């Protein structure tokens, strides 16, 4: 039995369909990431799970029990908001204690738990401060501690790292993962950053226009995208997609290598006209096109270990291992089985 289950969930705001028939099953302890571009309905989906928004259609089940019509406080769910939403007039200790107070946990037990939660995130020394006396990273930790303190069964996070600078973000991501593994709490994490999603998720649900386009492990969504949207949304630079007659042909930039770099196996050769080369230290990006498909930009990404000399404004011989080629339907862009290819 799934711990968290969402069935045919739909939410309309007037004419806008924010979430359009979403099904999710999440097992105990899983870290599920909702990934998608801005406005695709991630926050709305999360708010419905929390009970802050009532679905137009569909059901939400927690541990097999239908909670669709229950208010947030009757669900064992905690949520961390993008803005952290700390209570500005309360100290950190009172912020963290608030959910416990609301549950009627009193006295020494409450203090004990506040200490425990603060300890988890290393913020014991901040307990007497107010939110406005904290840095962004510290606020984020307080928000996490406040969410976790009453040991919810599901933990919802709406882009909790997006207000942090790049360096702090990496550290916070690491902390958060470590913490989630230790506690083993089922988490739903919203982000529009695919690197974050790939790095953190046990599974990733890729959303667009209120629908889940693909749900799978990071490997699955990266190597076997269900459609051209997922193929282009995940990976940086994204998958190369070429109009190849009856279908769309796709391959990842890192699989597009000069002839002779990788031998053996079944490889499909391409001519590649290189317009421009970018050196990024650890890798080289080659921008160009495949003759006969001049309208589509193709990118090759070569690790620094590949030292084959390559020149700009010249045609080179490249190839892709045939098991790394992906094929998509021309209308709709859905994944189709491998096709025979004549290059």
């Amino acid at each position, binding site marked *: 039995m799934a711990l968290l289950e969402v069935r045919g969930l739909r939410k309309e705001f007037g004419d806008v369909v924010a979430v359009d028939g979403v099904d999710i099953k999440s097992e105990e302890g899983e870290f599920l990431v909702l990934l998608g571009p801005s406005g695709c309905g991630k926050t709305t989906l999360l708010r419905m799970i929390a009970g802050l928004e009532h679905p137009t259609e569909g059901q939400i089940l927690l541990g097999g029990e239908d909670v669709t019509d229950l208010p947030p406080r009757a669900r064992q769910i905690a949520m961390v908001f993008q803005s952290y939403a700390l209570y*500005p007039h309360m100290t950190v200790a009172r912020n963290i204690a608030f959910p416990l107070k609301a549950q009627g946990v009193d006295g020494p037990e409450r203090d004990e738990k506040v200490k425990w939660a603060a300890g988890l995130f290393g913020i014991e020394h901040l307990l007497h401060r107010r939110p*406005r006396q904290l840095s962004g990273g510290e606020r984020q930790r307080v928000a996490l501690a406040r969410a976790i303190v009453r040991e919810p069964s599901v933990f919802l996070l709406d882009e909790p790292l997006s207000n942090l600078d790049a360096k702090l973000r990496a550290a916070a991501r690491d902390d958060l993962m470590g913490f989630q593994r230790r506690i083993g709490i089922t988490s739903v994490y919203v982000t529009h950053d695919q690197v974050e999603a790939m790095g953190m998720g046990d599974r990733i649900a890729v959303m667009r226009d209120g629908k889940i386009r693909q749900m799978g492990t990071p490997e699955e969504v990266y190597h076997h995208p269900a459609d051209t949207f997922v193929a282009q949304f995940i990976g940086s630079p994204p998958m190369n997609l070429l109009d190849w007659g009856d279908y769309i042909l796709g391959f990842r930039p890192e699989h597009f290598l000069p002839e002779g770099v990788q031998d053996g196996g079944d490889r499909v050769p391409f001519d590649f006209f290189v317009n421009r080369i970018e050196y990024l230290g650890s890798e080289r990006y080659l921008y160009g096109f495949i003759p006969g498909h001049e309208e589509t930009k193709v990118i090759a990404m070569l690790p620094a270990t590949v030292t084959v000399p390559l020149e700009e404004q010249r045609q080179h011989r490249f190839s892709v291992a045939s098991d790394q080629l992906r094929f998509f339907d021309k209308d709709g862009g859905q994944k189709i089985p491998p096709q025979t290819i004549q290059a």
Partner: protein
Amino acid sequence: MTTQTAKKPRYLADSPRFLAGLFMSPTIIYIVALVGFPFALAIIYAFTDITTGDPSLEFVGLDTIKAVWNDTVFRRALGNTFWFAVISNLFVVILATGLAELLTRDFKGKWFVRFLVLLPWVAPVSLATLTWLWTLDSVFSPIDWLLRQVGLIDQNMYWLGRPSLAFISVVAVQVWRIAPLAAVIVMAGMMAIPKDVHDAVEVDGAGPWRRLFEINIPLLAPIIAVAVLFGVILSMADMSVIYVLTRGGPTHRTQVLSTWAYFKGIEGGALGQGAAVALFLFPVLVGLTAVILRLARRREVL
């Protein structure tokens, strides 16, 4: 040296000093003519024995003020003013917070209800109070009629005729009159609380009472204080409700300083004494205004 370090404005309209003077002048003229001049006159009058019958300015030192102070009606009015302001604003706070809490919720017809709540504030005060005068009439009061029908009373209540009842009546009408303003002020404060904070309160499992007393009221305290101070100042300085309803009676039970100053100075003709009564309020109002300004500045940034 041909380069200028500080450039002189080329046109008069470029000069900040000229513009500042120009834009400030209407306000300054207005304040001097309509506030400053009468105020100065009141101070002068308070030290004379001027009356409408004898409009010559003869300075009598503190005599007028002493006479006013030793008047028992003045003492009563002083106490009444205090209790009138405090009691009515106590109810105003409770009502305003409740209304703000209700009106920031989402429900059908919200705009219409908001409009209704604001109505007492936008209606001309004398007109609205006249309606109350009829509502509380000794013979025709619809409230009495209702109570009689229900069987709660046999005789009319004489709302404005019995001293204590009259005081309760003017307090009630005053509350009705200023609560909308306070409600709107508190509502604006309520809407400035980030939505995420209220969502967090819900997810954290707090019910409506905890939300009110542990989140909204502490966060709104400075705003509520401003609303209260406005209400207190209005209750002390504005006499329209009492003037129309009871004219300070019966037996001066609803006499407050503003009405007493008016009856003494204008209707009674003792300009000097009227001015002296009115001036008693001045230090209190100045103090309250200073508190408002401080609170407004101290308002915590969320």
